[in-house]
């Protein structure tokens, strides 16, 4: 999975304790401030603060470093271009802003559960309920996160299937099965959403609070 997405880990850091809306608002304000202030020293300071906030959430080391490695590469390329143009200060500022903002977004997603994000998205969408049911935007975001690893799995399996048949470096043999199977997965996911009644906006007469309990212990894997 993309390390920036769906990387929530339970914890007790100050960021974990903050409500989702304040973190999203903070991220937005941070992005605006870093865009407005084009000073390399301030940029580096904000970047360091964002990295400290990220560390405070105790993120999973491997995906976090992988994500940071990628953004460092992008930042280095961008900074190199600015330096080539003769503007060293802008190069440092842009690179620091990119790394800082990415780190803060990791800190926010790593400290906010998907359900909190869903509640937040639902509240934000409430004023627009005449156009779209409030639960839909959050649900769309959750489905997007859920789909990323599945598409990645489908792509890996399609590549392996092509290799098993002796086909290598053939984009058609990779993309066509990936696309068709992804559509199949999307249809299955749609059926599952439908079956679970998610998105059904009709008024409820559902039974409430009756739990169906099970006793048998599960096999351990």
């Amino acid at each position, binding site marked *: 999975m993309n390390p920036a997405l769906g990387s929530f880990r339970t914890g007790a850091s100050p960021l974990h304790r903050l409500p989702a809306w304040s973190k999203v608002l903070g991220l937005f304000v941070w992005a605006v401030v870093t865009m407005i202030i084009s000073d390399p020293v301030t940029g580096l300071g904000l970047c360091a603060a964002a990295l400290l906030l990220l560390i405070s959430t105790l993120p999973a080391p491997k995906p976090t470093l992988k994500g940071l490695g990628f953004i460092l590469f992008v930042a280095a390329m961008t900074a190199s271009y600015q330096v080539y143009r003769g503007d060293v200060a802008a190069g440092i500022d842009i690179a620091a802003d990119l790394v800082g903002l990415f780190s803060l977004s990791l800190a926010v997603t790593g400290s906010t559960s998907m359900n909190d994000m869903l509640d937040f998205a639902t509240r934000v969408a409430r004023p627009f309920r005449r156009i779209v049911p409030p639960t839909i935007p959050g649900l769309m975001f959750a489905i997007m996160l*859920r789909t990323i690893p599945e598409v990645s799995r489908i792509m890996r399996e399609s590549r392996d299937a092509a290799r098993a048949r002796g086909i290598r470096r053939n984009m058609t043999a990779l993309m066509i099965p990936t696309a068709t199977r992804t559509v199949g997965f999307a249809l299955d996911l749609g059926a599952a959403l439908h*079956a*679970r009644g998610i998105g059904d906006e009709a008024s409820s007469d559902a039974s*409430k609070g009756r739990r169906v*309990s*099970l006793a048998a212990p599960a096999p351990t894997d």
Partner: protein
Amino acid sequence: MIEFKEAAVVAPETGVPILHPTTLTLDEQRITIIGANGSGKSTLARLINGLALPVSGSVHVDGLDTRKHGALVRRKVGFLFTDPSAQLIMPTALEDVMLSLRRVIRSKSERVKAALAALEDIGLGGKGDVSVNALSGGQRQLLALAGVLTATPMIVVADEPTTLLDLRWKAHVGALLHALPIQLIEVTHDLEAATKAQRTLVIDEGSVVFDGSPDDAVAHYRDLMFRKTKEQSA
């Protein structure tokens, strides 16, 4: 009680019949449906909670027409799919169960408590924060079942729920399903599991060709498959 009244389904583009007009009343606690691949048994199962709608006739659950009251019917009928991967929507186990509870429990803390209890009940205690991608096939199917059961259905329709599972998980999921204190309708290729019911339907080429005791149904199905294989090789 589930009632099919001359319910028929055709393929939308070709018009080929998938299920011929079928009239049935299903009120036993345990019903199994068996049949060859492509015989129409999954379509019959999907008609029960409105995932598929009949082109003619009707399907009623507790008097509610699946066409007119789809949302209400889906609250009464939980559906378990063959591949749990497509049924799990949220990134972690706890969040996925909580999603099913959003409609029923408004308070977040109550929702967390109920979801944790549901995971514990089903044998996934301690797996709440685990990514659904990190769960085994059997654990995913258990999680999918937990998601279905927390919505407190009156009926569970399971479409080949153990087909993708190994022997150990197959036995475990099968036992859990059969211990449910609610009506269970299971589509299966597992003929041994099919006999653990009060009534079994055999579907062939879009029609119910046998409806009766599970042992007789399995014998009928074996005979049917034997005849078809013989015809094919002749």
